[in-house]
């Protein structure tokens, strides 16, 4: 109720978030202005895509994300119960296998996505940073898979770790990155590397949304630099 007893009506056009005005200052206004310019909601969540998106080649990337989703879910379960569980119980075997086959799918479809972007020259028209972030994701993923293989806690992982120790020693980084140091490998595998991959995948998706999917090479509307 207002002072004179009349009911208060809320004007939604005033209370709803407004676009930032050009004359507003401060870091929040600056960030909002930049986000609204580079990533408007119509680009972030588009309801329509160009006709050339209608190809199975563009499905490889999202299947890779789906595999990453199941990798993280199964990995959290494995981390919670530990190796004494995933090696001996039937449910543990199931989640261990889910984690293993998810990573197979992750790499298979990431490489198929890479082939599609390579032969489609996906870095064109200002998308070089998107390509570069993809390269970094691929590189960290290889490291994440490697650290995963050496922490399985079985004879296979011991064989891999011993050979890797020799190989990495020959590069001069054996003291910094010790494949026989289970704590280091486990920490990298369950913490730093998956967080890095996940954050970079989010950045990669935002980059794709911001720039849109690159036009086909033979597109008559191709932008010439």
């Amino acid at each position, binding site marked *: 109720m207002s002072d004179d007893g009349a009911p208060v009506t809320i004007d939604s056009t005033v209370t709803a978030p407004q676009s930032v005005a050009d004359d507003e200052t401060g870091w929040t206004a600056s960030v909002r202005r930049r986000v609204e310019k580079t990533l408007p909601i119509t680009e972030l969540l588009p309801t329509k895509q160009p*006709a050339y998106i209608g190809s199975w*080649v563009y499905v490889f990337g999202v299947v890779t994300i789906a595999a990453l989703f199941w990798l993280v879910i199964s990995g959290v379960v494995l981390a919670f119960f530990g190796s004494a569980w995933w090696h001996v119980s039937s449910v543990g075997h199931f989640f261990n296998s889910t984690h293993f086959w998810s990573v197979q799918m992750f790499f298979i479809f990431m490489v198929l996505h890479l082939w599609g972007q390579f032969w489609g020259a996906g870095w064109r028209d200002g998308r070089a940073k998107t390509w570069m972030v993809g390269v970094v994701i691929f590189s960290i993923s290889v490291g994440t898979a490697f650290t995963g293989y050496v922490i399985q806690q079985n004879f296979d992982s011991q064989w891999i770790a011993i050979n890797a120790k020799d190989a990495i020693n020959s590069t001069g980084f054996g003291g910094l990155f010790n494949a026989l140091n289970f704590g280091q490998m486990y920490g990298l595998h369950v913490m730093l590397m998956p967080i890095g991959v996940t954050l970079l995948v989010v950045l990669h998706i935002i980059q794709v949304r911001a720039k849109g999917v690159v036009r086909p090479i033979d597109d008559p*509307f191709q932008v010439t630099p």
Partner: protein
Amino acid sequence: MDAPAPYIHWGFILISLPNFVLICVMVLLFVAALVAPFPSHGPKEPRDE
């Protein structure tokens, strides 16, 4: 399962049979993705300009 995988040795190329089969399947999948018709929903939208 514990036996070592058979290997294909062709000149300087040395690859296990499972890896070779997997790469062949990936190539087939990639080609299939290029040529297989993609299901569309409703009439096609005009090109994004």
